[in-house]
């Protein structure tokens, strides 16, 4: 990676300012963690498309933009401003404004014993040992400069802890709101979710914006699922199309733990969604499910790295993409089966629907198998909206826009069907429905007067 064309000195300046203003009673290990991460970031700079993991996603615009640390000012965001982002039937809602936890905007009432929900900063003060035992232990800052940059500025974000045997039926909603700034700003939410043995939780991370403007949201979530824990995680990106959104979900799974990751990329201009589970105990199960919907000039990159480290673990990846306008989607699905991970069962499927001639998808499976008794399959399809289906619906009286919406919803419903039927899914379903409504109305679909029958539907490419 070359830093010759990148101006990253200001990150050092921002960092110096950030460290100087950090709380005096912060533990020493935290400062050392940040400094090491910053050093790593300054060493590598931002990735370029020469880097295999970033081949399809050019972040030079991020590298060129002088993002500054957002500071620690009070948010000034009111309850009323958040009204439309609340969800029904959640166990609790934690609100973060520009990456910082705002207790006054959060709703934490009625949580049972064994559950701690809070801001990370708060818990660094209250239980530093627990935080130290996990923070930065899973995400690899040497693999990817963005988590390195996040770690350098790691201070606040969500802290979720479920003690052994704690079951939360309703979802925990983590709402990340970015506000307007006059100059380009960066936010580095750092989330730590620790779900101990035999516990069960659903956590929604949702990213929204109160105003446009150049914002780099570079979040990292470390999710630890203890033995036999069941965790469902949602990543919902709804920022405006001028936002830069990088998120890294690093999942550490214990023996027989089951984790599901559901990603919903509906907004953002340049989005990179990293999901990296390590099935580090025998018999772990992981479902990675996602839907990305892009139009305009959105760039939505999904980078999956699934590591099977112990025997008898299984993983399923299903990603569906819908791309219109000049949108560019990426699905990079890497599966690594380590030497000890016999009887691994890994499957990966990526289906894409391109609604315009200019929309583009790059899909790349990558299997690295070091064990000899495993089952790994992958497949990818790219297609257009099926004109036969569209005509069928219209021939029954359903107008073109409604028919398009039905077909888009049908395509998206495959993802919804993989989510457990609860408040989180209801929320996801509603967001998808609204989003597809606007896409179905999109004028960019100009094929009403097709000159020849479009018989081509799903074309196998993988």
């Amino acid at each position, binding site marked *: 990676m070359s830093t010759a064309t990148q101006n990253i000195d200001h990150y050092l300046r921002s960092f110096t300012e950030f460290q100087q203003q950090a709380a005096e009673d912060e533990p020493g290990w935290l400062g050392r963690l940040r400094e090491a991460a910053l050093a790593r970031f300054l060493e590598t700079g931002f990735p370029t498309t020469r880097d295999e993991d970033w081949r399809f996603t050019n972040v030079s615009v991020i590298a060129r933009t002088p993002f500054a640390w957002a500071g620690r000012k009070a948010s000034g965001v009111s309850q009323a401003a958040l009204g439309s982002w609340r969800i029904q039937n959640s166990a609790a809602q934690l609100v973060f404004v520009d990456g910082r936890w705002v207790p006054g905007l959060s709703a934490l009432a009625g949580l049972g014993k064994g559950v701690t929900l809070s801001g990370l900063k708060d818990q660094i003060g209250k239980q530093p040992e627990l935080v130290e035992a996990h923070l930065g232990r899973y995400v690899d800052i040497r693999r990817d400069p963005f988590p390195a940059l996040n770690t350098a500025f790691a201070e606040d974000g969500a802290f979720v802890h479920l003690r052994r045997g704690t079951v939360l039926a309703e979802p925990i909603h983590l709402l990340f709101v970015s506000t307007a700034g006059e100059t380009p700003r960066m936010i580095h939410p750092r989330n730590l979710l620790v779900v101990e043995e035999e516990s069960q939780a659903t956590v929604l991370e949702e990213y929204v914006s109160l105003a446009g403007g150049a914002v780099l949201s570079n979040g990292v979530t470390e999710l630890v699922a203890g033995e036999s824990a069941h965790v469902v995680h949602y990543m919902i990106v709804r920022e405006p199309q001028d936002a830069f959104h990088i998120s890294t979900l690093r999942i550490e799974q214990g023996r027989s733990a089951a984790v599901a990751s559901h990603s919903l990329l509906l907004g953002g201009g340049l989005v990179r969604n990293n999901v990296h589970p390590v099935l580090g105990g025998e018999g772990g199960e992981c479902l990675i499910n996602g839907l990305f919907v892009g139009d305009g000039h959105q760039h939505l990159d999904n980078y999956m790295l699934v590591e099977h480290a112990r025997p008898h673990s299984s993983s399923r990846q299903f990603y569906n993409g819908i791309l219109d306008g000049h949108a560019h989607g990426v699905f990079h699905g890497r599966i690594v089966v380590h030497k000890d991970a016999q009887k691994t069962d890994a499957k990966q499927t990526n289906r894409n629907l391109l609604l315009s001639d200019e929309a583009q998808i790059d899909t790349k499976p990558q299997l690295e198998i070091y064990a000899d008794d495993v089952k790994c399959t992958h497949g990818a399809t790219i297609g257009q909206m099926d004109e036969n*289906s569209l005509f069928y619906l*219209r*021939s*029954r*009286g359903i107008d*073109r826009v409604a028919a398009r919406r039905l077909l888009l919803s*049908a*395509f998206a419903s495959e993802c919804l069907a993989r989510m457990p039927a609860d408040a989180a899914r209801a929320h996801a379903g509603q967001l998808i429905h609204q989003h597809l409504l606007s896409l179905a109305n999109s004028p960019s679909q100009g094929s009403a007067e*097709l000159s020849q029958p479009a018989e081509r539907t799903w074309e196998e490419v993988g």
Partner: protein
Amino acid sequence: MSLLEIKNLHVTVGGHAILKGIDLTVNAGEVHSIMGPNGSGKSTLAQVLSRRETYQVTAGEVVFQGKDLLAMKPEEAACEGVFMAFQYPVEIPGIGNAYFLRAALNAIRKYRGEDEMDAIDFLPLFREKVKLLDMDEKLMNRSLNEGFSGGEKKRNEILQMAVLQPKLAILDETDSGLDIDALRVVAKGVNAMRSPERAMLVVTHYQRLLNHIVPDTVHVLVDGRIVRSGGPDLALELEEKGYGWMEAEARQAAPASA
């Protein structure tokens, strides 16, 4: 006024002339059968009437209930009362059968200025028709035609027709691929819908279906033209002698365009 009036209809697909001057008048209450060999243009006629946009009309007109059918979009034709039972119904995973059918019914009701029907009102109507077509109600909660057998798909077409109650029902080779039991069920469903207000256009290659759905008039389509029209006996004659002799006649009649 006749329900459907087709005058001198010429249609091309991808530059190839398929229909070369069709004239056909269908009155309400009548059942007409369009027969013909493969490639004669039967299905093209059915698709053009249901307003498939991939077909280009180069000449002629089609008047349906006094309106220019060729100016209509597929959904408008459907709302005006045209229904085609597809030869190959599509499978659409992710859209439930019952949900779809209610959406279609409501689209048509809305077009006609009628109130939309909620799920509770819809259910009894739906159940009645499901029973008429001897279908498994469980299928109806599944995705549209997904995993249906050929016979189930065809029955589902007639079920849709029974719910949507069109003015003009076009059956495009509905008999193909059906065993005799399924054929009887489908015919029962179709016959139940014969009425003085409704006309039917039964497109078929074989006479077999016409034993069960007896038409008033049979037209024989060869190379894009109706070469002969007659009563139900004409179908029997075709069954006996095949299409060969009629194709030969048609070639003699119009050598230049063959």
